[in-house]
């Protein structure tokens, strides 16, 4: 049978969508703080104010006529990223990795004409990619020079690290690697590989693609049991301190590793998905309950990270 019994899932502590919405997002994420994560420009400014490392901000385009300033903005750069401030699910992100003779090239080598960039930004301003079609602004960011340590793990895209931060404690993490199938995107439902990470060490525990366990990266054949995320402690600290910054109890943080600057906070998510459980091969509920049961005042970041490393470590499933 292709279906699990609900009580089996419950016993394993697997969180479902309705439970996430009602018992965690609804209860721990006050509506008034959503703007801090839904608007990437606000997130970025907050992060800068809190000394959290983020990708360079090259510029902001908030009016149609400013679109023409973009070539000037990116004049002396090899690559850049244009993203909508209120986009969701990776929609509307345009990555340019090469600029040559006034022409722009995407990571897969396809050319993007300036006219196409104008249209993309114009659409962004009109709210095409934002939730509910609200008017938006476009953020132009510096390109991340991703750490060569991940060479071979990801295909045509930067792998990113998703951590679930519950009341300031990192509870579960995964590495998301794009594949040919996901078209350079790191979203699991589009075919990216999700690798569950041990909270204590940053080592891979389990890997899935399309919800099925995999041992090798489908394109590069990289053995996924060998993955070790570098700078793991810094990463945990940065992600955990995002709690103080945005005050959302149930939070997803997306980070990337830059070759020079180390972990950078890409974006925050007030409604992180459930696929992280599948990547970890483990339900998240027991860990959330563990934190919920804790009493006492809020610990400092370092203590929270130490506590999580002590309690949420798991054995590899490879």
């Amino acid at each position, binding site marked *: 049978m292709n*279906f*699990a*019994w609900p009580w089996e899932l419950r016993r394993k502590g697997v969180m479902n969508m309705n439970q996430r919405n009602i018992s965690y997002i609804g209860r721990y994420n006050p509506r008034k703080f959503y703007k801090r994560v839904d608007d990437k420009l606000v997130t970025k400014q907050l992060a800068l104010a809190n000394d959290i490392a983020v990708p360079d901000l090259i510029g902001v385009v908030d009016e149609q006529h400013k679109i023409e300033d973009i070539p000037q903005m990116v004049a002396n750069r090899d690559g850049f990223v244009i993203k909508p401030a209120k986009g969701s699910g990776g929609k509307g992100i345009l990555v340019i990795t090469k600029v040559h003779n006034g022409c722009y090239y995407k990571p897969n080598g396809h050319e993007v004409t300036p006219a196409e960039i104008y249209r993309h930004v114009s659409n962004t301003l009109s709210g095409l990619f934002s939730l509910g079609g609200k008017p938006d602004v476009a953020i132009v960011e510096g390109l991340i020079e991703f750490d060569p340590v991940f060479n071979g793990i990801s295909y045509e895209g930067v792998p990113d690290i998703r951590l679930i931060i519950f009341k300031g404690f990192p509870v579960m993490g995964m590495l998301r690697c794009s594949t040919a199938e996901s078209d350079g995107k790191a979203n699991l439902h589009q075919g990216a590989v999700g690798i569950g990470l041990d909270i204590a060490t940053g080592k891979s525990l389990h890997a899935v693609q399309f919800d099925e366990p995999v041992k090798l990266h489908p394109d590069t054949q990289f053995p996924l049991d060998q993955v070790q995320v570098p700078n793991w402690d810094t990463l945990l600290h940065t992600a955990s301190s995002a709690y103080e910054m945005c005050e959302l109890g149930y939070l997803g943080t997306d980070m990337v590793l830059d070759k020079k600057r180390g972990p950078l906070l890409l974006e925050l998510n007030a409604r992180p998905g459930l696929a992280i459980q599948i990547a970890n091969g483990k339900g998240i509920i027991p860990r959330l309950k563990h934190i919920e049961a804790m009493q006492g005042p809020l610990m400092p970041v370092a203590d929270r990270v130490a506590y999580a490393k002590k309690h949420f470590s798991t054995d590899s499933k490879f």
Partner: protein
Amino acid sequence: MHSRKPFYILVALLFIAGIASSIYRSVEHNIPFFPGEQVQSWAIDAKVSFNGQGQPAEVDFALPNDPAFEVLVENASSPGYGLNINQTEDQRRAVWSIRQANGQQSLYYRVTLVPTGKTKIKAGEELPSAKPYSWPVTELSAAEQIISEVWERSASNQSFAQQLMAKINDVNQSQNMSLLLASNTPTELFVRMLNTKEIPARIVNGLVLEDQRRRQQLDQMVQVYHDGYWKLFDVNNNIQGREDNVVLWESKGNSVLDVIGGTNSQVNFSMLQDTRPALSTSIDMMMNAQDDWDFSLYQLPIEEQSLFKGILLIPIGVLVVVFLRVIIGIKTSGTFMPVLIALAFIQTTLLTGLIGFLLIVAFGLMIRSYLSSLNLLLISRISAVIIVVIFIIGFFTLISFKLGLSEGLTITFFPMIILAWTIERMSILWEEEGPKHVFVSGGGSLFVATIAYLAMNNSLVQHWVFNFLGIHLVLLSVVLVMGQYTGYRLTELKRFKPLAGEK
């Protein structure tokens, strides 16, 4: 976490209120639970005839007065006569009058009666008194003998009356009884004997209903008071109790027909059984009642009523969407777009609707792909798509008209702005995620719309949401409860299957 109790109490109250008001509606107003239910009704013609004597005439005729039957329509025809319907002490009477009546006169009264099923007749507040009959000397001892004999063998008003009726109808009559029956009709004798024992009893006039009978007369029957109710006895036919096919035409012990200024008066009845839709019968009766405080949609003009018939279906569609999304976990593009598509399907029928929708969206996507290369602002692009959608709809309507396909004409019922947005979103989805996702999310929307359509197009559902407004409270409570559902969606049971397997 604050208590959930008030919430559940609210939900329970909504649920109970909804069910209760529906039951009330059904019981009090006879609104049938199922559409297409039929009720029996009786069309009865009463023909009053008498001989006029060339002088003023006044005809006072009792009208049916029986809680077991409700008057649906009544009218009287009587050329040249003035007509007045008087209501006195629960008894309605028609009074015809004319200055000069010559020769044979015929007056007609026609009524349509609907059985209500309330065959028990409750006596009024004050106990009716019984005037003892003073027997003629010749009959006195015979009557007293029989009465005391029966009295000994009875326990209550009812049993006394039963015994008495049996005695009157006894084949082997005693001499006493034969004597009494020689000068009294059985019905008279029955009432007089009851009254002698101070048991309230009165003669009423009943009409036995039988399909297609003509020239029927009223039967004299007797009502005997017992424990707060009037019990019916038909002494002539030795029948005790009320049968469904008896109408009490006059039940207060008054005369049925009084004619002043005429001779040889009589009344004849003819009747016809008819079946009519239970729903419209109930609505007609509610309209007759003219209750200003009755908040029902039937009081609206027909046009508004049909509008509401559509609007009241939306909660059903919404319920389907909530169920399919929260419990089953089907993804749709746009939260309530499927409901709007389903509403359009109701106008177009399912197959035409599906084909029309696919045609419009397919053509729209083609045009949209051209517009996308023009580098327009989003707002004007969507506006352009709306205008083009109107062209497409007009074009298909014309084509189908020329081809003689009347179904195609209904394509105009699709909400255009919704279609334009759908096309825009699908086009973006196509560019970003590929055609596969367009078919998945578009297919999901159409699937949900189809299910919603099937639910909304169900004649039972349509009957309930319009005629029992309490159902909407029930729907509200169900939606609220589903909003509390923290369990797994059906699709999640499949999605998380890998997490359940291993120990």
